[in-house]
């Protein structure tokens, strides 16, 4: 069984937000409808994004490190957001493990977002349906694109190659090797959601 996922290398992410903007650009232009912003030029603008880059400071000064931390849906193997959905709009694809929302079935009750410990889902204020990272499902399955470009927009945009994409169930894939050899870890393992996306920890500098 295939499980597509991202592996994010915290050693090389420089926090440039290119993945954020390319994600927004791709997903606001897609066939699934725009990713709208609410009150974009007003005093209190908000927008929906499928991907964010956050920054954390680790350690006590002067022994500190800055960790840039990209955050998007982790496409859990046991996604808590799916069984709670009353309409079946929230689902996990059998063929590739991507967790998706059927925007035509979603009633905007927000229960799935409550059921996601990571805060990976955002309501679209204009369409009033729940939205989330699709792993650019319309891109990675588009056979009219050259094979090298059948990757999520964030992966294509990353200038430091901090984002790897592939099948984490295929032991020979680049992502599986990276997880194996570099101790790729899960976020909030305490909830048993088994996130498919993994993060590669910082390596000790010599």
């Amino acid at each position, binding site marked *: 069984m295939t499980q597509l996922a991202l592996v994010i290398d915290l050693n090389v992410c420089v926090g440039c937000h290119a993945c954020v903007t390319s994600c927004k650009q791709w997903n606001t232009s897609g066939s699934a409808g725009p990713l709208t912003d609410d009150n974009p030029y007003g005093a209190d603008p908000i927008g929906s994004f499928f991907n964010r880059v956050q920054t954390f400071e680790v350690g006590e000064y002067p022994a500190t490190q800055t960790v840039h931390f990209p955050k998007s849906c982790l496409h859990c193997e046991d996604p808590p957001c799916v069984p709670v959905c009353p309409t079946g709009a929230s689902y996990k694809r059998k063929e590739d493990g991507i967790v998706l929302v059927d925007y035509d079935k979603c009633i*905007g009750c927000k229960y799935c977002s409550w059921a996601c410990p990571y805060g990976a889902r955002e309501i679209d204020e204009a369409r009033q349906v729940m939205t989330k990272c699709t792993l650019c499902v319309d891109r990675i399955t588009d056979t009219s694109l050259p094979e090298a470009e059948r990757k999520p927009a964030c992966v294509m945009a990353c200038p430091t190659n901090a984002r790897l994409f592939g099948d984490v169930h295929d032991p020979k894939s680049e992502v599986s090797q990276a997880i194996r050899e570099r101790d790729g870890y899960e976020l909030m393992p305490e909830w048993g959601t088994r996130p498919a996306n993994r993060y590669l920890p910082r390596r000790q500098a010599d």
Partner: protein
Amino acid sequence: MQPAFSVIFLTVLIGAGQGLFLALFSCELSGFGTGQGERLALAQGGGLAILLSALGLVASFFHLGRPERAWRAAAMWRTSWLSREVIVLPMFMAICAGWALAHAAGWAGTRLIGVLAVVVCLALFVCTAMIYASLKFLQEWASKLTLLNYLLIGTASGTTLAAAFASFTAPRLVPALALAACLLTLVALAGRAASLVRNARLKPRSTIQSAIGVRNPVVRQRSQGFMGGSYNTREFFHGRSAQALRSIKWFFLAAGFVLPAVLLASLDPTRGVLLLSVVVQFAGLIAERWFFFAQANHPQNLYYQAVS
């Protein structure tokens, strides 16, 4: 969490409606409802329970982004407690309507319909409470006490309402109902106090370390990635001070439980006192439900601790 008034009104109103039905049916089981006037009183009371449930149902629609698609919510009853609630609530209203109608028309078999309505009514309490109690990482909710409190608060407020209702339609029931409402309110207070004590001792299982997977004991967020707001910063934060939360807690303990219990315990509760109990308790329980939502600390908030 940011409390949503649609859900607050939904849960408080249907809880009171369910409790009202349970109180009325208890009256029937204890021998009330033999004459035509008494049966009419039960029918009217059943109508009031349906009205409260219907108002709750209407309130719930305001929670939906796409209310016109609400019918779809009955689909996933195998896995979703919300879906189960969507099915069981109209079912309760329908059976309760059958029970009220049977009383109004003077038909036999009201006790049989009533027992069926009790089963569905209890199932509805379970569905409503499990929507919250089943979310294991919302640790304030993930407890059997959530289930207990939805049941106790619903029955207590419904019985208070039944006592006030009886003061208009069946005065001889008032002393017993007022006493029952007083006792149930005190039991509900004990249940709610137990959950407050439990929640005050909770230790969050998720930490900033587990959220980003860094073991260092000192981790500070320097940027959440954007300057404006987002769904994540609006939906999951109540935005009130700890002081405000404490005030609301004391208000709901007083207005939702202590004051109504004192009023109901008065030796000869008049119509005015009973109506006052209903109004005070309703206000208190709205605050109780607000607090229930606000107190739940969502682990996603760990990712939104600093704008920049």
